[in-house]
């Protein structure tokens, strides 16, 4: 099965065969592929059940590697710091930023720079947030691909978006990643919005996402308000950049769960 695996759209589309993909799966499981190559392989895997199964077979190997560390006793100072966490961090489940000393120093310095320079730095932080969001989605996607029982739904394009390919991966525990290739970038005041459709037709918000450049591979992390089994379908529409309480723009993708 040959699947186009070039997500950038800036080069000619090349074909990533299953044989080629299989030779890279061990490196992917190890995290040894550069980002662009990893994205191509992940996209192929997202559409190829055979390669997906082969990737899962590396999961026990990764587990073996995790235990290849010399066991060292943690110093007493470390034990005391950890023991103090419930006292200093407050109640469990309370979300606080997790930041070591060096990151706080960086954050203070960055804030001062922002105050001095202004809008240009605000835009830079926005790009960093977008990058972190993509990295988080990539991690979720690999985790889903390695988990038995993860489900995949291919979404169909609507209207002129015929060259778009999209797959939604999800697990019943409310983890999900939408993988899309071929959507066109929108105006600055617009975004794509994912809708999770209940059997009675009600729509839940599945989050907004943007496509940075034509043809790029986009990963959108989905955190549904309810478990996946409560939904019958999904759809993607064009909405204002901050999203809408309900679909208002044209639909570009749809699928049944």
């Amino acid at each position, binding site marked *: 099965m040959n699947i186009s695996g070039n997500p950038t759209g800036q080069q000619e589309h090349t074909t990533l065969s299953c044989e080629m993909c299989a*030779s*890279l799966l*061990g*490196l992917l*499981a*190890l*995290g*040894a*592929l*550069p980002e662009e190559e990893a994205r191509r392989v992940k996209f192929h895997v997202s559409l190829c059940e055979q390669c997906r199964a082969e990737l899962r*077979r*590396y999961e*026990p*190997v*990764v*587990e*073996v*590697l*995790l*235990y*290849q*560390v*010399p*066991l*060292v*006793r*943690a*110093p007493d*100072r*470390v*034990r005391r*710091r*950890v*023991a103090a*966490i*419930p006292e200093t*961090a407050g*109640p*469990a*489940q*309370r*979300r*606080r930023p*997790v930041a*070591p*000393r*060096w*990151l706080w120093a960086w954050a203070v310095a960055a804030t001062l720079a922002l105050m001095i320079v202004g809008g240009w730095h605000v835009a830079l932080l926005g790009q960093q947030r977008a990058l972190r969001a993509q990295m988080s989605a990539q*991690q979720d996607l690999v985790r889903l691909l390695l*988990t038995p029982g993860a489900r995949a739904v291919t979404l169909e394009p609507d209207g002129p978006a015929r060259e778009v390919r999209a797959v939604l991966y999800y697990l019943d*525990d409310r983890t999900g990643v939408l993988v899309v290739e071929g959507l066109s970038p929108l105006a600055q005041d617009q975004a794509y919005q994912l809708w999770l459709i209940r059997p009675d037709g009600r729509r839940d918000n599945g989050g907004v996402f943007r496509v940075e450049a034509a043809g790029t591979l986009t990963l959108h992390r989905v955190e549904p308000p309810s478990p996946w089994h409560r939904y019958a379908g999904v759809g993607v529409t064009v909405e204002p950049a901050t999203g809408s309480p309900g679909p208002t723009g044209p639909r570009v993708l749809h699928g049944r769960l």
Partner: protein
Amino acid sequence: MARTDVLDDRLLMRRIAAGDRAAFHDLYERYVDLVYSMALKVVQDPAAAEDIVQDVFLRIWQRANQFDASRGRLATWLLSITRNRAIDVLRQQNRQRIAADAFDERRDDHALAAHWYAERDETVHLSLEILPPEQRRCIELAFFYGLTHQDIAAMLGLPLGTVKSRIRLGMRKLQAALREEQSKGPT
């Protein structure tokens, strides 16, 4: 014994999610050495490893409900998030090559975590010692320091194809060895 430990871990995590400090104490006593060992192996710096251990256990205290026992052992989950966090630290400080250079291939006196867990857990464990040294080194550089095959090739002065081949063959060899051990049954 092993099954009791697994059930204990699940119970501990549920209790921690409910804010049980005694459960948190039991959990970190059980796993703080393991987490510290992984952090130290990756960052090769005790002070940075200490911060990473703090981060990991803070995350457990604040988000114990994120652990899904159906996906695997708690120890594996802890090692995985520790490794990821440690590699993030290396990347942010541009210290991946430095840490990898400091990595000492000699096997020191400390027993591997794999040996310790093999004694208390019925599941199969393997050692990287079954691999030829050149394959083992490439795999460890990628896995513990977050280096890509390009980074490893540059670091070791090898062709890219050689590095990719060593990693691919090493991973397949580990896969085959695991299948063989699993077919024999638990040790």
